[in-house]
Structure formats: structure tokens, C-alpha cells
């Protein structure tokens, strides 16, 4: 048992830190450290920078062009990026669709799609959720009918995060209505410039355009964009979910945000208020405990000696902590978090802030963070999973 990283791991961390320090634009980290708005250029610029280094697919094995890092190296990379104020890597390409293509795609598909994901050039979106299928994902209805060398896709997807920027979208579509709902689902890759696709914004309550509806009206999808076998898409998606656990707890971001909370609390004079400070202390304890749980998972992955089935716990706890620190930041600013001045959330705005510049995004972030206990399998669904593990 040892809490410390090995000298090799420390050296690896240093290498990443140095590279990130040299390559992450200051204006970008400033935005991230202050929760200012990020645009497409911010996000894709960082993706391309990582891509040039071969790190945009940081969790990929070497055979597909990745760095072949182990679980701890991946964690250290994520941590260094988060603490330096790098924007989150949009996961749909490198984290979500790429592993499916690697595991179930054919060599042509791998050759065709993976390089564009690694380089950060091609922006992928996710097409899973539908209006009627939330926690009950298998009830999805978006149809794909095989006609010759094409699938004809009709239906609707929703909650498509940053789909307004998407070049490609990977979709679960219904190719059969026979048997259990899970058995008639296929996994399709779709070019978002295809005729018949309409992307409509969903404005969330914080006033932001982060998610979208995607409508499919007789969209022709070449059959060679089907992953694996028809009607087996559910299996592939579940494989993805089982492997999409990297950083599910988001603990590195939580550490960075806790630092921001402390800065705001100091500036607002509540860090010296015992009552408020206790709340911060509690979050600090929560974050350390969460990080220890993450490290336990990494150690288990690394050694293979233990089986630790706590992904659902990490999702629940991580999301609750995100909500709590964003709530405390808002409460620290109090009345000064209540103005809604859109320009004030843009970097470089020269107007007069109400209160301080850091106040502007706080309420919006708090509102936005409500999503974290809903998406990615709601926390209620996660509790179902945990109880299944515990009770059998």
C-alpha cells in the first residue's frame, strides 16, 4: 500500500505539466478558470493542439495511434489538464465513438474515422437520447430502414450536446421492432451534412445553447457506416458505457473549482465567516474522499488484483459535488450573482461588472449543473445499479 506515485509516474506528470503549460493558451485557461464562455474555436483549437501531439485520443492504445498509457498515466494527464485550466475534451469523438470503432468497427472504418478523431479535426456528436426515452434508453424509436446500400433514417434525437458544431454523429437507431426493445437497435455513423438533417437549438434555463434536437427526415446513410452487425448496436453501446468510466467522477475539475470557490469566498469576505467556511471544509472533505475512491479504482485497474465495481458511486458522488460547489460559489456572491448580463460572461468585456467579474457566471453555472444528476444515466438509475450490486 502506497499513496505516492512512483518516480516514473511523477516524471510523467512533470512532462505533461510542462507540455500543457507551454501549449495551453493563457486566454483559454483564463476563461476556464473563470467559467467564462468558450466558443467552438476555443474547444476545437485545444483539441487540435492535443491532436498534433497525439494526445487527443489520450486513452487510446498504441495500435490505433494512441499513446498507450496505463490507467494512472491517463489519470495524471487528465489531472494536469484540469488543474492547468484546459477546457474539457469533448468526449464524443475520442472517448465515446472511437472505442466502439476500435472494438467493433472494421479495418476500413477504423482507417477512415479514427485519424480525424485523433487530430481533433472532425467534431463528433452523440445521438442516443430521444424525447420519449430518457432513463429508458432502449425504448428509442428513431428508425433506420435498409434500402440497397443505404439506411434511410427517420426520427428525432435530443439533448445532443454541442451538436450545432457537429460534423458527424453516432446514433442508436431502431432497425427492428421484433423481440425485446434492446435487440432491434443498430449503431450508425452519420455525416451531419447529409440532406434531411436539421439541428434545432434547445436553450437551457441558464440562457445558453449547449444542447440540441437533431431531426432526421429520410436521411440516406451509406450502409458501410453501420458499425458491426445490424441489431447489435445495444451491445456496442453498453460496451462503450462500461468503458466510458474515465474521469466519470470529474474529481480533477472539482479540485480546480474548489480553488475557485476559495478565491471567490475570500474576495467576498465569507472565507473568514465560520459558518460559510465550514461548508467549504465539508466540500474539501468530500473531494478528498472522492479522489481516494478514484485512486482506489486506478490502483485496482493497474494491478488487476481487485475488482472494484464503483463506477455508479463515482457518478453519483461526483455530480453531487459539482452541484454543491457551484451552489456555494453562487451563495458566496449572494445578491451579486443575481444579475443576468450576457456580455459579462464573455472574456474581455470592458463594461462595469455588478459586484466583481467573477460574479457574472455563478448563477448560470449553478443552474446548468442541475443537469449533472440527470444526464449520463440519472442518479436514480445509478442507485438502481448500486443496489443491484449490493443486494444481488
Amino acid at each position, binding site marked *: 500500500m502506497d499513496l505516492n506515485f512512483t518516480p516514473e509516474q511523477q516524471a510523467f506528470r512533470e512532462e505533461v505539466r510542462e507540455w500543457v503549460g507551454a501549449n495551453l493558451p493563457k486566454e483559454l485557461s483564463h476563461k476556464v478558470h473563470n467559467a467564462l464562455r468558450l466558443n467552438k474555436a476555443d474547444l476545437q483549437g485545444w483539441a487540435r493542439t492535443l491532436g498534433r501531439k497525439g494526445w487527443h485520443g489520450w486513452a487510446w492504445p498504441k495500435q490505433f495511434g494512441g499513446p498507450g498509457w496505463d490507467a494512472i498515466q491517463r489519470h495524471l494527464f487528465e489531472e494536469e489538464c484540469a488543474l492547468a485550466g484546459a477546457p474539457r475534451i469533448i468526449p464524443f469523438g475520442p472517448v465515446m465513438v472511437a472505442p466502439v470503432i476500435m472494438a467493433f468497427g472494421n479495418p476500413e472504418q477504423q482507417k477512415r474515422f479514427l485519424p480525424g478523431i485523433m487530430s481533433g479535426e472532425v467534431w463528433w456528436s452523440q445521438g442516443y*437520447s430521444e424525447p*420519449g426515452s*430518457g*432513463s*429508458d434508453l432502449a*425504448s428509442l424509436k428513431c428508425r433506420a430502414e435498409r434500402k440497397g446500400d443505404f439506411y434511410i433514417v427517420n426520427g428525432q434525437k*435530443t*439533448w445532443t450536446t454541442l451538436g450545432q458544431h457537429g460534423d458527424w454523429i453516432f446514433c442508436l437507431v431502431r432497425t427492428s421492432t421484433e423481440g425485446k426493445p434492446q435487440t432491434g437497435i443498430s449503431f450508425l455513423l452519420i455525416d451531419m451534412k447529409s440532406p434531411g438533417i436539421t439541428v434545432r437549438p*434547445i*436553450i*437551457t*434555463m441558464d*440562457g445558453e445553447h449547449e444542447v440540441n434536437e437533431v431531426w432526421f427526415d429520410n436521411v440516406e446513410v451509406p450502409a458501410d457506416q453501420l458499425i458491426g452487425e445490424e441489431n447489435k448496436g445495444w451491445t456496442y453501446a453498453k460496451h462503450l458505457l462500461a468503458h466510458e468510466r474515465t474521469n466519470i467522477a470529474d474529481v480533477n475539475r472539482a479540485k480546480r473549482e474548489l480553488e475557485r470557490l476559495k478565491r471567490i469566498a475570500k474576495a*467576498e*469576505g*465569507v472565507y473568514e465567516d465560520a*459558518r*460559510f467556511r465550514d*461548508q467549504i471544509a465539508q466540500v474539501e472533505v468530500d473531494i478528498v474522499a472522492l479522489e481516494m475512491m478514484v485512486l482506489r479504482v486506478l490502483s485496482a485497474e493497474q494491478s488487476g488484483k481487485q475488482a472494484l465495481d464503483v463506477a455508479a458511486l463515482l457518478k453519483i458522488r461526483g455530480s453531487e459535488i459539482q452541484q454543491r460547489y457551484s451552489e456555494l460559489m*453562487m*451563495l458566496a456572491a*449572494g*445578491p*451579486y*450573482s*443575481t*444579475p*443576468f*448580463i450576457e456580455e459579462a460572461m464573455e472574456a474581455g468585456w470592458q463594461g*462595469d461588472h*455588478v*459586484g466583481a467579474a467573477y460574479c457574472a457566471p455563478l*448563477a*448560470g453555472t*449553478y*443552474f*446548468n449543473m*442541475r*443537469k449533472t*444528476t*440527470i*444526464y449520463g444515466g*440519472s*442518479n*436514480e438509475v445509478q*442507485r438502481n445499479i448500486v443496489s443491484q450490486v449490493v443486494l444481488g
Partner: protein
Amino acid sequence: MDFDYTDDQEQLRDAVRRWVDKGYGFERRMGIARAGGFSKEAWGELAELGLTALTISPDAGGMGFGPVESMVVMEELGRGLVLEPFAAVALVATDLLQQGHAPSAALWLQGIAEGKERVVLAHQERAARYRLNHVTTRAENVGGNWVISGAKSVVPAGAHAGAFIVPARVGGADDDAQGIALFLVSRGEAGVTLRGYSTQDGACAAELKLDKAAGIELIGPADGHAALERAQDIGIAAACAEAVGAMDKLVAITVEYMNTRKQFGVPISSFQALRHRIADVKMQLELARSMSFFATLKLGAPAAERRRALSQAKVQLGQSMRFVGQQAIQLHGGIGVTMEYAAGHYFKRLTMLEMSFGDTMHHLGEVSARMQDTAGVFA
């Protein structure tokens, strides 16, 4: 000991509810929010209902109603998420204007009663947090006239007010409870700068800067802090009642959604974990309703008793608002976080109400500081 409404109070409630249901629907409200968060027309309609004159004494052309009627109205306005600054103008400012000794107060009251004018309290200062005693705005008597300099933040609907009630220091240090007087400052005076903006709940507020602006003393330094405390407590009671109305409606929306939305082939209201959640939501709603009554019925109590009670109420309401708001969104899932759906707007308003007139932590501190050996409603 009786919590029934009188027939008059029920009629008042019905009238406001009718207006909210028929006259202040979701689309209109969203339109007002997009247009800046204040509608003169809607304000006029409130005035036509007699509401702007609700607590103004009959001598001054008002209806002379009290805290219970104010609560009745606020609950209904909360139910409809009405954006216009009813409590700020017609409950808080009218009370200060009627307490004060400024000769012009009567004119402002008349203007408010008629729906033509709005006056609001502008007390929030940077770094004051929720402490009423922290006043750095200064008033100087120059040749018999008061001139006031300082800055006030997040003044409700400030850009739509004709005058402001401004606490300013005539003596003492920044944090002294002594030496604070309340002044009436017209927006048209030289040295008054206003900057309006939208707020997170779709309403609006303003930053008010005073640079040697002329003010008329409304309440002198001997009574200023006590008057501010009373104004805060009226504001708390109004926020409590508004929150109860908003929560009541939000729970109804959520219940309807749970009985309609299907997952795994059944309404989500059939899942026991969600059923117990809504039971906890109902608990918080009923505790909040109980404490809103308490807040209203203690407004007339002696200052120390009132102060303690209103902080107790705000703690309960703050906790209820946060829990009910957050759980309502969670029970809705994705649809709950969208701008086009009502639930999120209730959530945002409840969030702001928690921070108005002191948040939960602040008032828990007040309760803690004011505890006595005995406890309970009549302690």
C-alpha cells in the same frame, strides 16, 4: 388561534388568482422577460385590481390592508411568477413611506396607490452582504439640505422607479447600527445614475450611483436601523409567501409530469423512490407554508420577537425552496432544465428568493444569536 381566511381575504385571493391565470400566462411572462423584465401594462393591471394600494392607509387613498392580505396576494403572484416588483413597491416601500416624516411621502404614496409611480428601497451595498448595519453611503447636510453619495446594488426594478428610499450614514462608522437615516431620492435629481439590467429570474434590477444627490430625510438616524429591520422583515414575509405560491405551483406541475411521463412502460409516479421523493417535497412545502403563516402573523409583534420569528421563517423557507426547486428539476429530468418549460423558471425564482433579504446561512446565524431558553411558536 385560527388559520382560516375571511371571506374578504378569499375574494382577494380569487381576484388575484384569476388575473394571474388569465392575464399573466407563461407566454406573456416570457415576453415581458425578453423585453427587460418589467411591463407597465401589467403594473397597471395590478393597480386596477387595487393591489398597489393594498397596504396604504385609507387616509392616503389606499385599502389599508395588513400582513395577511399581503400574504394572500404574494402567494398568488408567486404562483404566477409575476415579474413586476410588487412586494418591493407596494409592501416594503409603502410601509417606509407611511412610517416616515417626509412631506413628499404622501404624494409618492398617492402615486403608488394610483399605479402611476414606483418607489423602492435601495439598500444593498457591496461587501455588506446581508448586514443592514453596513452602510457606507454618506449623507451630508449642506446648508439645511441633504446631499447623498454612495452606491447601491441590485435595486429591484430600479430603472422603473420614480424614487428610491436610500439608507445613508449621517454619523458613525461603516458598521454602526447607529447613525443610519433613510432618505427619499428622486430619480431625476442631479447626481443620480442608474444602470438597469435583467436578473436571472427574468425580472430586472439596477445599480444606483449617487454623487451628491439631493435627498429628503424620510426617517431619522434614531430610527433608521430599526426601520430597515422592519422593512427587511416585511420583505422576508413577502418572499416567504411568494415562495409558497411558487412552490405550490411547481409541485403541481411536477406531480402532473410524474403522472404523465412514462419510462419502462409505466408512469414514473409508480417508482417508489420517486414517490418517497415527492413525499419529502410535500413535507418541505407544508413546513414552508406553516412558516409563511408564522412570518406573516409575527410581523406585528414587538421588534425582538418579530426579528427572531422572521429569521426562523426565512431559514425554513430557504431550505424548503432549495429542496423543492432542486427536486422538481430532478424529477422532471432533461425537460426541467430547458428555457421553454415552466419548471426551470420556478426554480430560478426560488433560487433568487432564497438570497433575498438574507440567505439561509445568514438567518440561521440570526436565529442562533437570538435563541432563548424556551422555544416554540409562543416563546
